[in-house]
C-alpha cells in the first residue's frame, strides 16, 4: 500500500511556447489591445492542457520587440504562474535583435534547462510591419540554432503591411504564415495556434504525417476556414530539418 501512496508524477518533458510580439508603434491601438486580450485568455487554456497532459508540461515565454527587446519574464513559466502584463506599442521593429535574443535563450544554458529534457519548442511570431533593423544577421544566427531548426514555427501577419516574405523566412515556409485582417480574427488565430501547438505532441499521428509543424499548419488551416478575416497561404513547400545535435 505504501508504495502506491508514494507515487509521484511521471517525469514530463517541457514544451515551451514562445510568443514573439511586435510592439512597434504601428501596433498601437486595437492591434496591441487584441494581442494582450488574446494571450491573457489563452493562458488558462494552456494551463488546462498542461495539467491534464502526461506527455508534456507546457511553459510559456514571451518576448516583445520594438526599438529594443524585452522578455516578460526572465524564464519560461507555467501558464498558471504567467501573469500577463499588457504590452504597449511604440518605437521601431527590431526583428533582427529579437531573433538574436531568442537564439541566445534557445540553449541549455538559456531557457531550455528542464531536468527531464524538453520537446522542440513552438514559436509564434506576431508582426504587422517589416523589420527596421538588420534582421538578416539576427535571423541567420537563429536559423543556425538547432532548437530553432526543430521547432514548430508559425508566423501571424497582422494586416497587409506585414512583411510576409520576412515572416516566411522566419517560419521556414509560406504555409506557416497566416494573415489576419481584423481584430477578432487576430484573437482567434492566437488561440488556435497556441492551443494546437501545445496539443500536437500528445496526439496520435496518421499515416503520411510529416512533421509536427506540418500537422500544426494543417490543423490551423482547417480552423482558419471558419475564421472571418483570416487566411492561410496557398503555396506549398515543406521545411527540412537537420538534427545535428551532437
Amino acid at each position: 500500500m505504501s508504495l502506491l501512496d508514494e507515487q509521484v508524477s511521471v517525469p514530463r518533458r517541457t514544451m515551451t511556447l514562445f510568443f514573439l510580439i511586435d510592439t512597434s508603434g504601428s501596433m498601437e491601438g486595437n492591434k496591441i489591445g487584441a494581442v494582450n486580450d488574446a494571450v491573457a485568455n489563452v493562458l488558462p487554456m494552456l494551463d488546462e492542457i498542461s495539467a491534464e497532459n502526461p506527455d508534456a508540461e507546457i511553459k510559456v515565454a514571451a518576448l516583445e520587440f520594438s526599438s529594443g527587446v524585452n522578455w516578460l519574464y526572465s524564464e519560461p513559466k507555467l501558464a498558471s504562474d504567467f501573469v500577463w502584463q499588457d504590452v504597449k506599442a511604440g518605437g521601431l521593429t527590431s526583428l533582427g535583435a529579437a531573433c538574436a535574443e531568442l537564439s541566445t535563450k534557445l540553449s541549455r544554458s538559456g531557457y531550455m534547462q528542464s531536468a527531464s529534457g524538453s520537446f522542440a519548442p513552438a514559436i509564434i511570431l506576431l508582426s504587422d510591419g517589416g523589420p527596421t533593423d538588420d534582421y538578416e544577421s539576427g535571423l541567420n544566427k537563429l536559423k543556425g540554432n538547432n532548437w530553432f531548426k526543430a521547432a514548430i514555427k508559425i508566423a501571424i501577419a497582422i494586416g497587409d503591411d506585414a512583411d510576409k516574405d520576412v515572416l516566411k523566412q522566419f517560419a521556414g515556409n509560406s504555409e506557416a504564415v497566416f494573415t489576419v485582417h481584423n481584430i477578432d480574427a487576430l484573437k482567434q488565430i492566437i488561440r488556435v495556434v497556441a492551443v494546437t501547438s501545445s496539443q500536437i505532441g500528445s496526439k496520435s499521428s496518421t499515416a503520411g504525417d510529416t512533421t509536427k509543424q506540418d500537422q500544426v499548419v494543417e490543423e490551423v488551416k482547417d480552423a482558419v476556414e471558419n475564421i472571418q478575416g483570416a487566411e492561410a497561404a496557398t503555396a506549398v513547400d515543406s521545411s527540412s530539418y537537420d538534427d545535428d545535435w551532437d
Partner: protein
Amino acid sequence: MAELKKGDKVSLTSGGYVTIEKELGRGGQGIVYLVDLNGEKKALKWYLNAPDDKFYKNLEHNIMSGAPSAAFLWPEYLTRKEKGSYGYVMKLRPQNYFEFGNFLLAKKSFRSYSAMLAAAMKICNGFMMLHRCGYSYQDLNDGNFFIDPTTGDVLICDNDNVMPQGEKSGIMGKARYMAPEIVAGGVPDKYSDRFSLSVILFMLFYANHPFEGAKVVACPCMTETFEKKFYGTEAIFIYDPADKSNLPVRGIHQNVIRRWPAFPAKLRETFIQEFSQDKLKNPNTRMIESLWEKLIAGIRDTLVRCPHCGEETFIEESSKCMDCGKDIDSTHRLKIGTRSVILTKGTKVYIDNDNIPDAEVVAHPNDPSKLLLKNLSNSNWTAETPSGKIKVVEPNNMMPVNPGIKITFSNTHKGEFIQETNN
C-alpha cells in the same frame, strides 16, 4: 470544421435522433457531446472533419457486430452524414472512472494492489476479446482507458479506429506507445497492439515509461528524429540486462526505481523478456493476452493480507510483509492446476479471471490459529475430504482449510488444499 450547439438534433441511421445538450470534451479528431436519446443520456463523438467513407462503413460494421466485451465503450449508433460531418453514439463514462493519464500524473492512484491487478486483468481481457473477434485496435495509448481507482475496473474508449486485423485505418498511433516497427513506418496490427499493451501494463504497474531512462533523459531536445530513434530503431528497455546504458535515473524515474525490486519477480522477468531486443524486432513472438492473464492471475495468487498489519503484500521466497516486515505463514495453499494460491487470514481468492473474488480466507471463530475459506460466489462448491466424504459448501458458508480436501468450485475449477513445509 462542423461544431454542434445545444439543441441541435442529429439523426441516426437506425432511425430517431439525438439532441445535443453540452460539450463534454474535445480531442484531436473531434468533440464529445452529452446528448439525449429518447430520454436516455448518451455520449456523441462528432468528427470535426468527417473521415472518408471507408471509415464510416467500418464504424457501421463494428456497431452491427457489437462490443467484444463489456470493457469497451463501443459505438452503439451511427449518425447520418449531416451538418457537414458525422459521428457515433456510445454510453456515457460513469463519474468514478478516471483517465489513465491522471494515474500517471499521480492525481489519482490505485487504492490497492488488488485494484491495480484487476485493472491489468481487465485490460488484457479486453484486448484478448478484441483480437479474438478478428480486430486490431491500432492506436493503443494512455488516452484510451478510464479506470476506477477503488475497484480497478476499466473502460476502453476511442474504439473508432478498430479495424479487422490486417486492414489500415490510416492511424499510426501515438509516439511513445507505438511499436518500433510502426515507428519505422509499418502498418498497425494485433502484434503492434501487443507491444502497446505491454507498454501500458508496464506504466500501470511501475508508473514510468519502459524506454525512458538515462539515455533518453540525456537528450536535451526530443525532436521527431530522436523519437524515431529512442522509441524505434534504438529502443532499449530501462532494465535490459544485456545493455545497461538506459537505466532509470534517481530523482527522475522514482516510481519504477522503488517498485521494480518490490514487485514480484515474475513480473520483472516477463517485462525483461517482452522488451528484449529479440521481441522488439520480432513482433509475432510477443506475449499473447491469455498468457498475460495467466501471469496476472499467478501474481494475484501471491498477493495476501498481512495477518499482522492488515496491509496487502506480495509473498515470494521470503515470507516477510513488504510493509511491516514481519514473517507471514504462507504454508497454507490452494492448488488449482499449476497455480498455488497463498491463503492467509483476510486474503481474497480469485478462481477465474473476472476480477470478482470467489472466496475469502477467515479465521476460525473459536480457534484463530485455524483458517476457514468462505464461499463468496453465487454457486455451491463440492468438497471431498481425505476420507472420501462429500460436502457441499453453499454461498456464504465456510469450510476448513485442511490439507487434502479437494474442492470443485462452481462445477468448473478443481482445487486442493495443501500445506507446504517451511523451507
